[in-house]
């Protein structure tokens, strides 16, 4: 299955345009839990078309979300990204999807698993205000995961200008903090520093910001030193290869207030490079080396960017999705 996907990115453009016609398919999830959404929708009020619309909306709401853009109705990140990119350029967000037997399987299962997964979904959404669910339970269940990142996401056209949330969503307890962080970044770093911002509700309402790569070092210094943010502790640095782009995710924590933030910095895939924050948080040092080693992202400004896990003469970066081992047996 994965091999098939490997090939996909090449055909992506075609796919995108092709898929835009088939918006109804947005709900085309594979099966299992995600399939529930379909099942729910199907059994619930909205018919396919309706659900497609709502999903489309969701997608446009969540351009930043990368893989989190569940609303795109895709389980594949490149598709999600495509969708997100598409969303930025043309609001009628395209969704390309293989419907086929997988979806059929999903439908078959849906009836069976709908109940369980719906419960799961409900639990995920439980953190949100009960009011929302009470108001429109079907909708809330239709795509809670999709909706949650989208809930507070920036505007669809990629302007990332407004961080206000769409009306149907209740505000997350961390929304003010997110807004404040965005405001600070805009004021003190640069107007275009924040690409988007959202609340990751499944993850304890984690305020998640996507910061423009060029502004990242300044933004990091701000996070570190500003007394309101005061994120003095860098929990974790992760690199992710989304096949359309690379992303470095920083999980920040303020030990004094206990506030968490997740910062994402995106970079293109051909010459991935993100400014190093080792001068800001020493923690980043080896983490960035590891990301460099395994994903090949360059960190200009890093004091000692060498391979850390693999041997120095290793070829390629194993965690990249297009990595081909020299010897397949190994």
């Amino acid at each position: 299955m994965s091999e098939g996907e490997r090939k996909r990115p090449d055909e992506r453009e075609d796919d995108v345009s092709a898929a835009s016609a088939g918006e109804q398919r947005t709900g085309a999830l594979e099966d299992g839990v995600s399939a529930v959404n379909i099942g729910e929708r199907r059994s619930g009020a909205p018919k396919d078309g309706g659900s497609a619309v709502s999903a489309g909306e969701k997608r446009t709401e969540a351009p930043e979300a990368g893989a989190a853009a569940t609303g795109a109705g895709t389980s594949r990140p490149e598709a999600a990204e495509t969708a997100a990119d598409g969303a930025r350029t043309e609001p009628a967000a395209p969704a390309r999807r293989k419907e086929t037997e997988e979806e059929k399987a999903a439908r078959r299962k849906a009836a069976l698993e709908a109940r369980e997964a719906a419960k799961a979904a409900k639990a995920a959404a439980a953190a949100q205000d009960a009011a929302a669910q009470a108001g429109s339970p079907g909708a809330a269940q239709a795509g809670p995961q999709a909706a949650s990142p989208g809930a507070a996401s920036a505007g669809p056209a990629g302007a990332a200008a407004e961080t206000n949330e769409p009306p149907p969503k209740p505000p997350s307890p961390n929304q003010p903090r997110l807004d404040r962080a965005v405001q600070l970044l805009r004021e003190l770093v640069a107007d275009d520093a924040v690409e988007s911002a959202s609340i990751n509700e499944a993850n304890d309402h984690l305020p998640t910001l996507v910061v423009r790569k060029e502004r990242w070092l300044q933004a990091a210094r701000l996070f570190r030193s500003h007394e309101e943010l005061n994120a003095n502790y860098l929990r974790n640095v992760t690199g992710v290869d989304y096949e359309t782009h690379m992303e470095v995710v920083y999980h920040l924590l303020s030990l004094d207030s206990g506030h968490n933030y997740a910062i994402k910095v995106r970079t293109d895939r051909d010459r991935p490079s993100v400014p190093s924050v080792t001068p800001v948080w020493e923690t980043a040092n080896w983490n960035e080396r590891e990301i460099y080693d395994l994903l090949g992202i360059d960190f200009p400004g890093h004091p000692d960017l060498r391979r850390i896990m693999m041997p120095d003469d290793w070829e390629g970066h194993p965690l990249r999705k297009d990595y081909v081992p020299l010897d397949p047996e190994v």
Partner: protein
Amino acid sequence: MGVIRTEELLLNVGPQHPSTHGVFRIIVKLDGEIITEATPVMGYLHRGTEKLAESLNYTQIIPYTDRMDYVSAMTNNYVLVHAVEKMMGLTVPERAEFLRLIVMELQRIASHLVWWGTYLLDIGALSPFLYAFNDRERILQLFNELCGARLTYNYMRVGGVKWDAPEGWIDKVKAFVKSMYGKLDDYHALVSGNEIFLSRIKGVGAYDAETAIAYGLSGANLRSTGVKWDLRKNEPYSLYDRFEFDVPVGRNGDCYDRYVVRMEEIRQSLRILEQALEQFPPEGETMGKVPRVIRPPAGEIYVRIESPRGEIGCYIVSTGKAEPYRLKFRRPSFVNLQILPKLLVGESMTNLVTILGGIDIVLGEVDC
């Protein structure tokens, strides 16, 4: 004295060396016995867990987490299943959650015992190692009865645990907890007051809270500087908010404080265990309602828990499939180890061992 020409000695410590706790390697430059530069080299145990995980489903990844921090496999199990459960919004039956908490605290004690024994061995005392392993053996025996393995448990599942407690197991744990208090006193009598030992670790490898935070240290390494940060208290997970326990902190951030903090943590774990065993629900499910195929919804999550070595985190990017799109573990040993080169400069070869041991690393986790 200028007439004597001296030169620096480049010494390669490891990867095969008795005190590197596995296959860790440090290249040190020595001026006499004083270290002028230290360069850690790792990766000898890199198995590509994160890469492997991308082609495995979540149940299959659990045994791999066992092998990361093999001294504390239970907490590794937990961080993965906890992340998946949180993503899927699953609820875990109370009895299962209690069992998880009990095994995690037992594991913390076992892990600290291994640390204690090997640390003393590093410092040159032979017996504590055997004393510690004797008691750790009893914990492993309990684990063996519970889940059929002594080290790589594969015990937790998304939504619950694999095995319910066998008959009489809870009583055995109770008996163990009771006897462990006495053993702990023995340990203290054996070395904690030993003047040679104290002179070896007091004031060695000290850093302040600010440095510790900047380097992202966690666990006892952070708490030894006086920062009261324990995820069990500060960001409670599992059932930790139900129990009373203290978070021991140090003051000077030296090896001695780390020693005291860890030893006290054993006692606090025993306290937690006592309460948990008291409140253990006599009946109940040990497996929640879980879909047959575990497919977390698309999205991402970062969860973190307090492992014996510090904050172990799990970052999952899911695309709604049965396999994670990206799985990254924040390994406390790996992050804690970063401060080593800084601490070593100006110390002697002997202190290298003391400081490295004091950080408490497990190479399976560093290299992942």
